[in-house]
């Protein structure tokens, strides 16, 4: 495995291997809960928590897990952290937990998390895995913030509940409904790909 510097290991999650825009992973929560910035952010943080801690556990006990049952073991570890996150949110942030609903438990089947364990944490040291998942989590939170900001500003004229658009602005209700999610993400993916192509052709 080619060794990357710590900085590269972190930065790759932000853009080159951004889980949402470049790898198309974890699209279900990305589309479902980004109708308001606060929901998108909460989901991003909850996912980051599960990703980082399950990777810490898995990378530190990777030698103890027989490879035939590794997927099942990963899922149990991930499910444990998801249950913690779910209970924590229900206890301390009941309104957010209510509006995210069953999408918090769905973090278990978020392919970003299992994907990182299989591709990275099960082969690398604890420290490297920590840097890697920190980068990936930041990339995911970033993607959630971009998507939810666009949808909330255009869909309701607000940002985090504060009015940002003038009185002339008629909210595009469609943006906070399911079709808006698909179309916004489709356009964002095209923009991301175009930027990638431009930087490649310059080299």
């Amino acid at each position, binding site marked *: 495995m080619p060794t990357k510097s710590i900085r590269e290991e972190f930065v790759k999650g932000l853009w080159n291997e951004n889980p949402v825009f470049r790898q*198309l992973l974890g*699209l*279900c929560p990305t*589309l*479902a809960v980004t109708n308001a910035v606060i929901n998108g952010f909460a989901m991003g943080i909850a996912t980051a928590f599960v990703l980082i801690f399950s990777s810490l556990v898995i990378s530190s006990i990777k030698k103890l897990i027989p490879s035939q049952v590794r*997927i*099942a073991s990963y*899922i*149990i570890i991930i*499910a*444990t952290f*998801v*249950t913690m996150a*779910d*209970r924590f949110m229900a206890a301390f942030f009941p309104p957010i937990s209510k509006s995210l*609903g*069953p999408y918090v*438990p*769905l973090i*278990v*089947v*978020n*392919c970003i998390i*299992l994907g990182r364990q299989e591709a990275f944490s099960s082969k690398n040291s604890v420290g490297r895995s920590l840097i890697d998942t920190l980068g990936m989590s930041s990339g995911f939170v970033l993607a959630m913030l971009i998507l939810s900001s666009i949808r909330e500003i255009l869909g309701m004229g607000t940002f985090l509940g504060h009015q940002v658009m003038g009185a002339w602005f008629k909210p595009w209700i*469609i943006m906070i*409904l*399911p*079709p*808006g*999610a*698909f*179309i916004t*993400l*489709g*356009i964002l*993916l*095209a*923009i991301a*790909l*175009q930027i990638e*192509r431009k930087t490649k052709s310059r080299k």
Partner: protein
Amino acid sequence: MELIAFFIAAVLINNFVLHYFLGICPFLGVSKKIDSALSMGLAVTFVMSITAVVSWVINHWILIPNKLDYLQIVSFILVIASLVQLVEMFIRKISPPLYQAMGIYLPLITTNCAIFFLALMAALKNYNFVETVIFGVGSGLGFTLAIVLMAGIREQLDMADIPEPLKGAGIALIVAGIMALAFMGFSGMIK
């Protein structure tokens, strides 16, 4: 009558893909050809129906009587993973042609969030047994409908002149958005 409305709602109005955004990975990944999309849809419907029954039994006979409902997440995911494995072995023994058609899609289904969501939703909404089964079958058929329609559109898209950066996932998501828009029209069907 109410159960029929419930079924229609599960297939069309609360469509798993276009309303809840579930199963987006197979929806984008396996929707390039109509026949593979159909096989995937049927495999999902099949697993969903069984999952609905098994998770209901586990939730109502084991977890709730013992006040263990905080174990729902862990137990449902384990049930689904082992169920998919069992179904795969079973089909391989019973009907090799069916295995040929569905086989490669079955392992993928374990990580399909739609199945997990189905088990959670049925537990959350406290559906009774009959409702849970109808919910499972209806949601599976809704998924099949969405993925087959998508595959049909994408086969045509191959011949269209699409701007380079939109090719692949970009245009597929925009098409899905327009489909979701069309499916919103169904929401007036049931008050």
